[in-house]
């Protein structure tokens, strides 16, 4: 939805590509997005796991008819879009923060420490956008759904299995509230015992630092930062997190940041709207008790 919002800058007609197996429902949902012309549906059994080779091939086949190819900056598109760009012999602009006229963009480089303003000379603009920087469009549209002919399977790789984290919590990427724990939680048990009650109260997703993940306190999938997930919730609470560059990268666009750390000089406080110097093992349970929302 935010990608569609970002695409409106070009003032052209907008089509949406949907690839998969049994995707009628998704296509109908997409057809309601405001300002969209057509939904190009590529539905086939061999597309059920969206292997990069096959999806990029589809984008390559249809891409020449477009001036701009845009997707949100997720693992899914990061896997596929560069391949499609290379097939089209154009460069790609990753994780765009701002789009200006004349194909001028702002994106972050050097681990988020430098913003670069650049202009693309390519005939087709291929980019992923940092979703939280763009407004989502509404759902009052009525786009045409077009069943497209699917190219044959390339059979270069095959899907085996997947492991999705099962949780009743909102997914990390679009949660309104995220609370993240660091290495200082000390063990997997304590990570859960300390963070879960507060997360439940706040209906928050739980994130972790790489140090917490490496120590085995939390699963890979919830790592926030440069190597993990980039989040931008309304409220981000960093608990026992030092504030390493690579972690900041993943949360600095949050609307309100709270840090709880027992070291008054911890870097994380420089990025926090509200800092509380306290022992997390006391402050977090207290917070869980005092928060009124249920």
């Amino acid at each position: 939805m935010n990608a569609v919002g970002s695409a409106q800058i070009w003032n052209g007609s907008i089509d949406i590509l949907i690839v998969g197996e049994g995707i009628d429902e998704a296509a109908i949902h997409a057809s309601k997005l405001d300002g969209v012309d057509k939904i190009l549906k590529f539905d086939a059994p061999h597309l059920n796991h969206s292997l990069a080779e096959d999806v990029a091939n589809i984008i390559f086949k249809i891409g020449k008819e477009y001036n701009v190819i845009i997707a949100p900056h997720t693992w899914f598109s990061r896997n596929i879009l560069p391949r499609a760009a290379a097939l089209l012999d154009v460069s790609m602009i990753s994780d765009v923060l701002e789009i200006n006229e004349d194909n001028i963009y702002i994106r972050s480089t050097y681990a988020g420490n430098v913003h670069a303003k650049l202009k693309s000379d390519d005939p087709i603009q291929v980019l992923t956008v940092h979703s939280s920087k763009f407004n989502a469009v509404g759902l009052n549209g009525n786009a045409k759904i077009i069943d497209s002919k699917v190219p044959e399977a390339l059979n270069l790789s095959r899907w085996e299995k997947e492991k999705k984290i099962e949780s009743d919590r909102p997914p990390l990427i679009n949660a309104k509230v995220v609370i993240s724990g660091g290495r200082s939680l000390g063990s997997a048990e304590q990570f859960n015992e300390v963070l879960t009650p507060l997360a439940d109260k706040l209906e928050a997703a739980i994130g972790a630092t790489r140090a917490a993940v490496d120590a085995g306190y939390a699963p890979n999938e919830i790592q926030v930062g440069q190597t993990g997930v980039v989040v931008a919730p309304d409220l981000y609470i960093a608990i026992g997190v030092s504030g390493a560059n690579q972690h900041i990268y993943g949360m600095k666009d949050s609307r309100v940041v709270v840090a709880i750390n027992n070291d008054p000089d911890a870097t994380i406080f420089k990025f926090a709207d509200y800092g509380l110097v306290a022992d997390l093992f006391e402050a977090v349970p207290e917070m869980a008790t005092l928060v009124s929302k249920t």
Partner: protein
Amino acid sequence: MKILVAIKRVQDYNIKVRPKSDGSDVDLEGVKMGVNPFDENAIEEAIRLKEEGFASEIVGVSIGSSLSQDVLRQSLAMGVDRVILVEAEEVLQPLAVAKVLKKVVEKEKPDLILLGKLALDSDAGQTGQMLAGLLNCSQATFASSIEIKDGEVFITREVDGGTESIVTKTPTVLTADLRLNEPRFVKLPNLMMARKKPIETIKVDDLGVDVSSRLNTISVSEPLPRKEGIKVKDVKELLQKLNDIEGLKI
């Protein structure tokens, strides 16, 4: 099996790079440089596959100025067999790097091509996928585990909200995540030995590929810092402050 590893020389991950005062470019003067961390995982994985008997030869390649010799030597010291430097004075963009690597792949004919999932300077995360596209071969990005069974390559990789396992046909392009392994420390004698090994050097112009920049940097700047926040004295005050923020429901 033969393995090619792409190794980029970038700033040390602890260093906060800043723009030059005129905003024309980043200031790398005196900045500590080294092997891109994800490429270190790629090198380590190649060496492990060789140690486990799956690989026969590991070739390392870097594209950059003559300064990139140091990262190639580092890879030799870790256990890479042979290295190639494709000398280019300009910093090449991912599409150009992918085109250069394609030439190297055509010459070396590796079965596995390992890259990092992201270079710390470009923050692009594109080169591996682009190379796989140019080669029309299989790809598996953001790999946290790589195994070889019966000539097939099994990869666990990162997807939104979890991981998936896929199997790719060789030749295949894989990009390494930090979780793939723990890169080994280089022992000083190995580094001394690596100094004596030859580096095959190719001029990028001799490869006959279009390496021109398609993306032109207009200026660079430091991101606006977050507004300096305040310290609260206790949990009660914190919750009060949060409750006062419009639109934030606590």
